[in-house]
Structures are given as structure tokens and as C-alpha cells.
């Protein structure tokens, strides 16, 4: 894969995937995928349904091994560190590399407790905990909306608010990377737009990896975009270039078909 001169070429990637192959019992889900995720930027991952997008980002924080029967080979490094090394604790990997799912998954507890979930695991409490909860809600653009009543059940929030709560909850763990798997797919356009805007903001402090079916969304938010097809990385480039002058025929078909 070409790793041609982007703007951030001099900065080291925060995650580098090399020759990643994921096999299910009788088929290959990802085949020799190699790509770098830059720090403090939004990276998009697009591709038709079933091409392996979810599997790819789930290998990046060792969630993939939870789905049984997958054989993972190759290398995933987080800031130069091999996350699949035997001595690595996946719990710590996940603390550094957070994840948000397609459908908002809030815990059946209060807004505060949802956001405090991660920090509490790390032993935070009292003022410190409250500060980090408020900061995370603010970063997720939710503080103004939910107001002072953080003891409300989180399930009372709207879908869009719930998804931003999930983002706030992930941020509260203070990760460096945020993996998002179609985070706006189940939201209405207005709610989706808010989440999208939030991601764009987050790019200043975090490495954001955004899996999306919505090509316009990738075009709007992602600096670089990877196109996956049938488990292979077809093209990975600056988003503008990928959409306007794709090098591969497959990419062109996909991007134009989408807009077509």
C-alpha cells in the first residue's frame, strides 16, 4: 500500500496494522491488511456490508477475540507496542483505545454512573470523579442538554443523546484512540449531524477511527479514508483524493455507485 506524502507524514502513527489476517472457521474475513492510523485526526473506513470493517476495528482494541472462532494473525501496534504480545493485558489496551458501537449502548443506570463507569474502575471517586464526568459530558457536547440532573436514568435520553453519552463515557476513560462503528447509523439526521460535528471536534485531541456506510459522512469528517472490499484493503488515501480520483476501479465503482 502506498503511504504517500500526507500532511502528517512526519508524525508517527498511533496504530499501525501490518499484514493482519483474520480467519473464521471456513473463510477469510480480513486478508493481509496493512494500514496506519494517524494521531489527532479522523480516519474513515468504508466498504460494502460484510467487507470486514467492524472486524478490522475490533482487532485494534482486542475486542475481536471475544467473538469465538476467529484466528488472528499479523501485527497491530499501538504507539510501537505490539498489542497481541502474550504479556499484554487486553484490559489496558481497551483503556487506551476506546470504542463506540453502532447502536447506543447505555447501561441501565443514571447518566452520571454511565460516564463514571470507566473512571470508577480505576479507583476515582469524590470531586475528582465528578470533575472528570462533567468534563467528559462537556466534551461530548451533552452537558448543556442534560443540565444539572445527572441522576436521571440514562435510558430516558433520546437516541442521539444516548450515543453522545456513550462517547462521553468512552472519553472519561481518557483514551488516546476512539474507534467508532457506524455511530450515527441508528440516529435521525439531526442527531447524526450533532455526533458528526462532535467527532470533528474530537480530532484535535484524539485519534478517531470512524467506520461508516455514509460516504458523505466520511467525506465530511475524515482526513484519510480506507476502502475495504471482501476483506482486503483496496485503497487508503486522503479522503478527497480517494473520492475524486480513485486509483482502483473497485473504489471508483463503489464511490460513484454510492452517489449514483
Amino acid at each position, binding site marked *: 500500500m502506498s503511504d504517500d506524502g500526507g500532511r502528517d507524514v512526519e508524525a508517527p502513527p498511533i496504530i499501525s496494522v501490518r499484514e493482519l489476517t483474520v480467519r473464521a472457521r471456513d473463510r477469510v474475513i480480513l486478508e493481509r491488511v496493512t494500514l496506519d492510523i494517524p494521531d489527532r485526526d479522523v480516519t474513515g473506513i468504508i466498504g*460494502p*456490508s*460484510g467487507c470486514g470493517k467492524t472486524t478490522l476495528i475490533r482487532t485494534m482494541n482486542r475486542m475481536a477475540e471475544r467473538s469465538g472462532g476467529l484466528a488472528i494473525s499479523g501485527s497491530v501496534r499501538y504507539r510501537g507496542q505490539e498489542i497481541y504480545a502474550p504479556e499484554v493485558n487486553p484490559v489496558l489496551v481497551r483503556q487506551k483505545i476506546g470504542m463506540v458501537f*453502532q*447502536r447506543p449502548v447505555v447501561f441501565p443506570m443514571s447518566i452520571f454512573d454511565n460516564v463514571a463507569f470507566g473512571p470508577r474502575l480505576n479507583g476515582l471517586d469524590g470531586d475528582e470523579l465528578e470533575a472528570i464526568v462533567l468534563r467528559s459530558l462537556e466534551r461530548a457536547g451533552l452537558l448543556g442538554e442534560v443540565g444539572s440532573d445527572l441522576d436521571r436514568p440514562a435510558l430516558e435520553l433520546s437516541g442521539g443523546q444516548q450515543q453522545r453519552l456513550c462517547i462521553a463515557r468512552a472519553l472519561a476513560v481518557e483514551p488516546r484512540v476512539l474507534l467508532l462503528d*457506524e455511530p450515527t*447509523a*441508528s440516529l435521525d439526521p439531526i442527531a447524526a449531524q450533532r455526533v458528526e460535528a462532535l467527532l470533528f471536534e474530537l480530532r484535535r485531541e484524539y485519534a478517531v477511527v470512524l467506520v461508516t*456506510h455514509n460516504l458523505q459522512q466520511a467525506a465530511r469528517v475524515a482526513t484519510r479514508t480506507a476502502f475495504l472490499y471482501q476483506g482486503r484493503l483496496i485503497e487508503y488515501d486522503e479522503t478527497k483524493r480517494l473520492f475524486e480520483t480513485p486509483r482502483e476501479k473497485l473504489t471508483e*465503482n*463503489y464511490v460513484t*455507485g*454510492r452517489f*449514483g
Partner: protein
Amino acid sequence: MSQAASAPPPANETLIGGTTRRPRKSTVGVGLAVGLAVVLLAVGLGGGYALGKSLGGSSGGTTQYTLTETGSTLIYPYLNLLGPNFTKIYPNVVISPAGTGSGTGISSAEQGLVDIGGTDAYLLPNVAAQYNLINVPIAISSQLIFYNVPGLSVPHLNLNGTVLAMIWSGVITNWNDPLIQAANPGVSLPNLPIVPLHRSDGSGDTFMFTSLCFLSWKGWTGGYGTTYSWKAGQPGYQGNAGMVTGLTNTRGGIAYIGISYLSSALAAGLQYAALGDQAANVNGTNPANYILPTPTNISEDANLALENLQPPSVAISLILGGVPGATNLQLGAGGTMPTAQYPTPYPDVNLEYTLISTHPSNPARQTWVVTFLEWAISSGATAPRLSTVNFLPLTPAVVGYDMQALASVPIG
């Protein structure tokens, strides 16, 4: 490709599928369960009906009868022994007994659910008359007092009704109590707390034992019956088998156990007591004679109680039988007892009763009930059969009474 991309999100599909699948699954389950229940019910009813027809209806020349009995668990093994032998003589009649408890035997007989009710305790004559039933004794049984006291120098301790009543009342609490010592001179009694056991289920044995206590000691409160309000903390066991097991597990324990369980109690290493013949003087704590439950002693007790009873009745407790004063306690029909004293009989004895109807709905069927009982108290009551369950044959007086009573039952 664009089609695939614009397909609805798969997650929503799963959601819908999940919600509809679940109730359907449970509906199938309920359907299956109900179906199975209906089939079972149908088979059960149909089978029962068919069985009933084949049993009650006439097939070929002779009418087939299955005579049902339910009640006392002591009588059950005896009837189980008699039944097949009766069928050998009368192939068209089968006896079908069930050991359910004397209370159930009485209740079922009262409601006419069975041909024969079996009970260890007689039905009060006025109640029997009310339900058109008669008490028909078929054997003599007795009760033994077993104890678990290791290391005694004698095979049988001497105990008596007064001491037993005091033990179960919590007045005597240790095996080395002076009253026990007085009854067992020369025996070295251990310093060991006494744990009195009782039957938790309703039981003719409890009836006999509480009667013995009631008749022996004025301090006994709470009366007598198949159940009793035992002193708090005393352990209760289900059935005679439970008593044997419980007593085996309980060092220092003492229990009243039906004589049918003699061999299993002995096999468990338990010992039984000789009982005092007192009660000529109620509250006498150390009567002159201590008597073992030998067949002779048991029969003699029954004889003495019944031969001299005027008017004759079998609805009587044989506890402390033959001892003046017993009937004053109104255990039985209220006959008068002779005043002479009988020095030898074993005091803890009773009759095993069957209850049959004097107004049968099916006189032809009742013929066989009467025939069976007449056989059961005469030629059927062979020594080997009786001794298998440690019962004793009825005394001639009782057999005579029974025969007279059975003759009065209208049959067709």
C-alpha cells in the same frame, strides 16, 4: 453493491426477529405441555375406566372383584400377605391394600371410598354408627419401648408407664435418675441425658403410647391421640422406620416402636424394655412385676381385657388391659371392667382394626368383603403369616365377637 449498501441495517432486522420468535417459541411450549397433559389425562381416565370395568364388570361366568383397602401402615404388610392366599382359594377376588395411615383409613371408610378401612385405633362406636361402619379387629399387635443406651449390663431395662410419662414430660431427663435406678436395682446406669423421640406423623402408635402415659401418671397433660403436643425440642420422626433410624442415631434416645419393626430395631443394635404392670395404683413408680412383650404376655393382656368386658365390645384400648380403673378413663365403649387384678400381662397392647360398612351399596360385593374377613380371622390367620409381622392371633372371645358382627352385615 449499491443495493447491499442501501439495505436496512441488519441490527434492526435481528431485533424484530427476536421479539417475534420468543413468544412463538413459548406458545409452542405451552401448546405441547397442554397437549401432553390432555393426552395423559385421557389415557389416565380411559385406562382407569377400562380397569374399573374389567374389575367390577362380569367377564365370562364369574364376576371379578377387586376389594380395596386403605389405612394403617402396620396392617398393610399383613393384608399384602393374606390377599394372594385368599385369591388362591377364590380366584375371582383380589385384595388391593394400601398403606396410607390410620386417619386416611377411617376417613376413606367413612366416605365409602374403599371396601375396607384399616386402622390401629378403633373408631368410636357412636361415630362408627353414624357412618354405618363397624370395627372388626383382625389381629393383636403391641408396642415396644426401645432405647439407645450403650454398655448396659442387662438385656432389658425395667421401665413403667409412670416413668415413661415423666420422661416424655421432661420431668426425668437423665438415664441415672433415681426412679429409673429404683426399677433397675444393681444395674449401673450411665450419666447420659435422655432424648425422647416421637412420631411426627399421625399414628396409632402415638395413640397407644400417649394412652399409656395418660393412664399411668396424673401429671400427664395434653390427653392422648394419634397426634400430641409434645414438649418443645423433642425430635419427631416419620413412621416406625424413621423412629428406628432416628433412635440408632441418637445416643441416650428412647422411642416407642410398633412390634412389626422388632427385627429391624434389633438389627440396628437397639434394646427394648420390660414394662411394669402397675396402674392398679396410678402413679406407682415401681410396680412389682416387669413384663417382656412375649407372645404369651401380649395375648394374655388382650384376653384379660376382653374376656371379662361387659357388655362385650372391641372398641376398647387394651393399654394396661385387665387392670381395674382403665375403663374409667373412657378410652373405649364404656364397659365395666372386673375389679380383680391380673399380675402378668404386658401393658402396651392393641387390636388392629378393619372398618366395613353395614349398609353396603353393593351387597354382592360386600359378600366377598365379609367372606374375606371371616377367613382372615380364622383359617387365614396362620402362625407363620402372623409372625412375619409379629402380630398375634385374636383371642377366642374377639373372634366370636367378630363373627357375630360380620354375620349381621347384610349381604346378597
